[in-house]
């Protein structure tokens, strides 16, 4: 699962996804990375509260529900990261004065939770058929004490790491849309991690394509 | 400041009429009025397994085949022609919403008011936009019930000079069942004040206007200071109304006037003391009986 950076291969844990699995939301998806899994549901474009109305675009609300207890500061900050990523990829101006609600339910946290949230969010938004300028995916990299880069770390690996970075990467130009970092690292390490993440993102985008293709296989 | 303190005591209600205590026409919810199917179901009743049953506590009233139960007190059930006093709660498109103590806010349509400039004036789109200048939230009005909507809401109108916006005065909110239906509900009392006894239980006391000039469609209100004597009279009348209401005496011009006269030997602030109240009401009832008899 971990490899020396630059010498060969970095692994992503096995991942899976199921779309349209809930009957109520307009779009839903669950995303699994190893044991980490997140369920996402999207409602919208729907009626918006007057207080939250924005005259020229849709209001996007992102809620992250932890598995135990009530959402706290950590969830709020993750919500913000996810929301900003989604706002950047969604064409919100096409649905002014309406609301989009994205709810993410953590089903199990075994590391790389934020990236799993991002991936689940993207699949759910796609399932809801909301207009997007591009797709995005999340990749988490950990740098362990030996300076090795581990992609998609598990909870234990996260704990042992020196630095932890999560990037949201867009599908068209593989640019970084959002980054969230923790711990100390050098500029070079950051650049390496971004490069690794961009590489990894291609796998994920290919996976997106395969799952959507599979989903539409009956209507082809 | 001298404070008047008293301990709670049990008071017997005062009453002159000593009618029989077990009246048969009083029913409580769930009481079967009749099992005869020949009757029509009126207000305050329902049919349960072919039996006409009361749904409120009150007096049974029968008009031919129609049976209704009139509860002791209830919200205002307006009928066409009733005079009401109400408060504007909302300005909507082409209409005002008026709180009139009924179960839904009443509606005063823009087309049911006299706008400044005479009866024949056409209502323009501009009038719709300036509705708040005529009447705004919190204003009091007197009006007449024009019609009743299917859901029970009342439609009001003020298309007469006697109705319109109310200026300076005192509003007393009482139970609608205490207001006696009469030919007129507008009285200039000889004691120096005027009264509007709204059928909805809202009573408006105000200084008698000097000259009945044609004001600007009833939307103009005088802000001239009211003299102290006038204010005292109004305050006394207000307390008299409360005293009468506390003893469930029906309100109309004569009863109010008699009560006012009976109260003159007391100070205004003392009228609401229970024993004074009792005394005044007893006096009033005696006078009323004498007048009737």
């Amino acid at each position: 699962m971990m490899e020396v950076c630059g010498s060969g291969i970095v692994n992503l844990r096995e991942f899976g996804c199921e779309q349209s699995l809930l009957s109520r939301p307009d779009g839903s998806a669950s995303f699994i990375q190893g044991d980490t899994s997140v369920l996402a549901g999207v409602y919208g474009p729907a009626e918006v509260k007057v207080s939250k109305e924005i005259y020229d675009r849709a209001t996007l609300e992102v809620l992250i529900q932890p598995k135990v207890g009530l959402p706290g500061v950590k969830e709020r900050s993750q919500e913000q990261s996810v929301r900003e990523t989604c706002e950047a990829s969604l064409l919100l101006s096409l649905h002014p004065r309406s609301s989009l609600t994205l709810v993410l339910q953590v089903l199990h946290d075994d590391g790389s939770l934020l990236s799993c949230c991002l991936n689940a969010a993207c699949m759910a938004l796609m399932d809801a058929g909301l207009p997007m300028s591009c797709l995005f995916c999340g990749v988490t990299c950990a740098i362990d004490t030996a300076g090795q880069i581990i992609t998609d770390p598990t909870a234990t690996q996260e704990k042992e790491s020196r630095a932890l970075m999560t990037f949201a990467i867009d599908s068209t130009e593989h640019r970084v849309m959002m980054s969230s970092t923790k711990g100390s690292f050098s500029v070079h390490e950051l650049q390496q991690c971004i490069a690794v993440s961009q590489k990894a993102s291609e796998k994920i985008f290919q996976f997106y394509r395969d799952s959507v293709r599979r989903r539409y296989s009956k209507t082809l | 400041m001298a404070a008047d303190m008293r301990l709670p005591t049990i008071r017997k209600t005062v009453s002159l009429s000593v009618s029989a205590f077990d009246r048969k026409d009083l029913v409580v919810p769930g009481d079967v009025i009749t099992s005869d199917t020949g009757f029509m179901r009126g207000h305050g009743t329902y049919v349960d397994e072919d039996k006409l049953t009361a749904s409120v506590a009150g007096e049974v009233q029968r008009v031919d085949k129609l049976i209704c139960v009139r509860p002791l007190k209830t919200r205002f059930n307006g009928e066409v022609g009733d005079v009401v006093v109400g408060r504007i709660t909302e300005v909507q498109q082409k209409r005002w919403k008026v709180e009139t103590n009924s179960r839904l806010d009443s509606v005063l349509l823009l087309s049911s008011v006299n706008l400044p400039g005479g009866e024949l004036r056409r209502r323009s789109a501009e009038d719709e936009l300036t509705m708040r200048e005529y009447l705004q939230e919190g204003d009091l009005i007197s009006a007449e019930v024009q019609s009743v909507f299917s859901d029970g809401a009342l439609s009001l109108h003020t298309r007469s000079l006697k109705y319109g916006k109310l200026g300076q005065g005192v509003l007393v909110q009482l139970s609608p069942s205490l207001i006696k239906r009469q030919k007129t509900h507008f009285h200039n009392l000889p004691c120096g004040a005027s009264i509007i006894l709204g059928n909805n239980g809202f009573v408006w006391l105000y200084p008698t206007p000097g000259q009945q000039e044609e004001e600007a469609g009833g939307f103009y209100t005088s802000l001239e200071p009211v003299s102290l004597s006038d204010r005292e009279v109004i305050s006394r009348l207000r307390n008299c109304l409360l005293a009468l209401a506390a003893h469930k005496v029906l309100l109309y011009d004569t009863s109010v006037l008699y009560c006012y006269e009976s109260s003159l030997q007391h100070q205004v602030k003392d009228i609401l003391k229970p024993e004074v109240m009792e005394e005044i009401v007893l006096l009033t009832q005696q006078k009323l009986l004498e007048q009737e008899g």
Partner: protein
Amino acid sequence: MKDTPLSNCERDFLLKAIEEKKRLDGRQTYDYRKLKITFGTDYGCCFVDLGKTRVMAQVSCELVAPKENRPNEGIMFFNIELSPMASPAFEQSRQSELSVKLNRQLERCLRNSKCIDTESLCVASGEKVWQIRTDVHVLNHDGNLMDAASIAAITALRHFRRPDVSIQGDEVTVYSPEERDPIPLSIYHMPITVSFSFFQQGTYLLVDPSEQEERVMDGLLIIAMNKHREICSIQSSGGIMLLKEQVMRCSKIASVKVSEITDLIEKALENDKTARKAGGRCGYAESITQERITALKMDETPVEVTDVKETASDIIQKAEPSPHKVPSLVVPVPGVGQVGQGLKNTWGLEEEDDDDEEEEEEEDTNDNGSAEQEEDLTVMEEEPHKTGESREANVVELSDSEEEEVIILHPETPDRTPKNTGSTSHQKGAAKSKKRQKK
């Protein structure tokens, strides 16, 4: 956000159908929808699917100071979270009527019935006790949240293991699962709620109302019971007038339902235990049905990063495309303690004649539909499935008929709901099985 309003036409039709003893999803009056119980990776994590209603329960524990008036007792805390995901009408962090109702009902059902030995949760009297917290998240609301939540909560509590502790003097040592095996809670009995909805002033009665039925119903009667036929709580709600006879009748039906559901929970727990013992992987990830075209899974993926150094030096430069990898569709699923999903089960079978021929025809149609979907699906997929056999043994499905007995399903293929929404076929479990057996 507001919920879609209910039209007069839906209301009238539903009531008319109920008068004719028919339900939109083809169930009988006393039928439950398909019940599926799955477990997560952690101890104390349980997913319950009741038709399209889906809830998740997670039990957690913490050492806290006990309540002053009960120094020797652990603390039980319950919370049902109506996530906005479950329905557009649910709002974040608002104590809605429904939320209060469900939470209190769950508290009453599980705490007041004293089904858990709270005294065994005491570590040091007056100082440290275990607080057991049960979070129930509603993920999809399609009616009867109460029953789903109560099943999820009690199953999760049964599944839960708390860390072992030891006391030496004032020192409390909490052992990690590697050091000492965690300990299950001691549970005396399992109260389970059964919801009855009443229509037309109590003339008609349905078990396990769906969301639409809930919107039309006059009122609800919830009876919590355990399999020893002890009533743990009763709650009527909604503006209905009940008669004593109706309550008695409901309590009789409830006792039958409760014993069925209890058996099912035991079965699911047993399956999970075996699976965990066998050392197989378990958890949510494993419960995803690969047979649906909406689901896809990919094995551990290597990402080639040989050129990363160059890339890193010039981040803007786009990285080389990596070789395309065909995702594998096959993920053998060893230990999923799963109930439902149309696999073979081990219950005894009996079937009585159904008096409603037409009803069956309708079910039949759906039945065929899904059966065909499966065929088609296997053709469509690149690789055959091996998952079927491996799971066949440990999956149970609950379905029941008006005659209050249990019916078993013998599907030919591992999954009867291969398509995305799984809408129709999913909930038809009960009635479908009848048809199969008649053939």
